[in-house]
């Protein structure tokens, strides 16, 4: 997807992205200090924030093909299972129970399947949010710091799952973080952001 002449001002913060191309099927990392606008950028691509100006060319992707994992994922007031299948439900897709059990098992949430989602620990919430984002097979997944603040074991697990997805059916990933870490070994491209702009490094 291509972003041209994007501008957004929120209070004192100003963002300007003149020309930014996201190559499909690749894993893109965005790194930058806190408050540089990474989250705002993702939220604009996800359609949560409307830009003041600019063109977002999704190259044929619809809002149903795009998802974003927030830093603090929203969990519905219901069970882990119901949270997980929500994107399938609104698409009228019947969930594949075996696949769901396998996914939950893989991230260690099988036992918590019928538990109230909001009783999960923050690490478990991230895992659930991750599964919920990949379950409906979107074509663009944006990850806002979801994979930071995880223990190294979980981090490795996510790296493993992401690489598997990429092998099977390459999709586009935009992964944001404020520090370089394991996730970046995955990235095909890394972009640096500073004070609301992309910079070369």
């Amino acid at each position, binding site marked *: 997807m291509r972003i041209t002449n994007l501008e957004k001002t929120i209070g004192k913060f100003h963002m300007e992205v003149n020309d930014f191309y996201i190559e499909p099927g690749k894993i893109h990392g965005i790194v930058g200090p806190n408050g540089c606008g990474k989250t705002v950028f993702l*939220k604009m691509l*996800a*359609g*949560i924030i409307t830009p003041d100006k600019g063109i977002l060319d999704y190259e044929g992707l*619809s*809002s*149903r*093909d*795009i*998802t*974003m*994992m*927030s830093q603090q*994922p*929203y969990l*519905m*007031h*219901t*069970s882990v299972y*119901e949270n997980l299948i*929500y*994107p399938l439900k*609104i*698409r009228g897709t019947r969930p594949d129970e075996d696949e769901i059990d396998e996914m939950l098992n893989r991230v260690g949430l099988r036992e918590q399947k*019928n*538990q*109230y989602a*909001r*009783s999960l620990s923050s690490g478990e919430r991230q895992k659930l949010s991750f599964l*919920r*984002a990949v379950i*409906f097979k*979107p074509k663009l997944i944006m990850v806002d710091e979801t994979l930071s603040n995880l223990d190294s074991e979980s981090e490795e697990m996510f790296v493993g799952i992401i690489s598997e997805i990429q092998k099977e059916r390459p999709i586009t990933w935009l992964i944001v973080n404020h520090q370089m870490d394991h996730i970046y070994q995955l990235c095909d491209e890394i972009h640096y952001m500073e004070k609301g702009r992309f910079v070369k490094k």
Partner: protein
Amino acid sequence: MLEWLKSVVSDAGIISAVKVTFIMAVSSTAISSVLGILFGLLLERFSFPGKKIIVRINRTLMGVPPVVAGLVVYLLIMRRGPLGPLSLLFTIKGMVIAQVLIITPIISGMIYSYARKSAPSIRAFAVTMGATRWQTAKLIIRELRKEIYFCMVTGFGRSISEVGAVMLVGGNIKGRTRTMTTTISLLKSQGIFTEGVALGILLLVMAFILQWICDLLQKEGEEDENY
């Protein structure tokens, strides 16, 4: 004690008062809930010039003295009033209108506050999931269900405990528009305290049951709950 309570509650006038109270409270809560929930949610959803003033007026109306609301409705529906030909004065319908005027702002104001707190994050989540507008609206209502119940119970509580407006508009007519609270008020003025106290106890029991329902709703979905 129980015998005495029994003899009081089996009195025809009292039974009728309990019935009138319930019909009135259920109808006014139902109408106010539909209006208040819809208005509160729409107020949160849309920005428009003058919204702040509307929110402020809503908050003011949340604390309107029931007698004032009763007086306004009385003036509207009295025989020479603009709605006089509908003959609503001294009927349960008239009482319900007055109560809707009192309860709707309470429900809409509460819903607005709750929605302002949580609807933006629910909406953002719905966008990331690719939900349609309609699915998003449904999700917001479902996620706020506990708060919605709570507002309805609050509205119901307001309704059964209200005296001033129903007295003015309903006229406290025995067997027709006399409610539990207006009965107590009348009994007191006649110096009949025992029956008044019994009715008071009955109202307290109802209040307790309501409180209990609220409590259950608050507890729903706490930490260790299994679904």
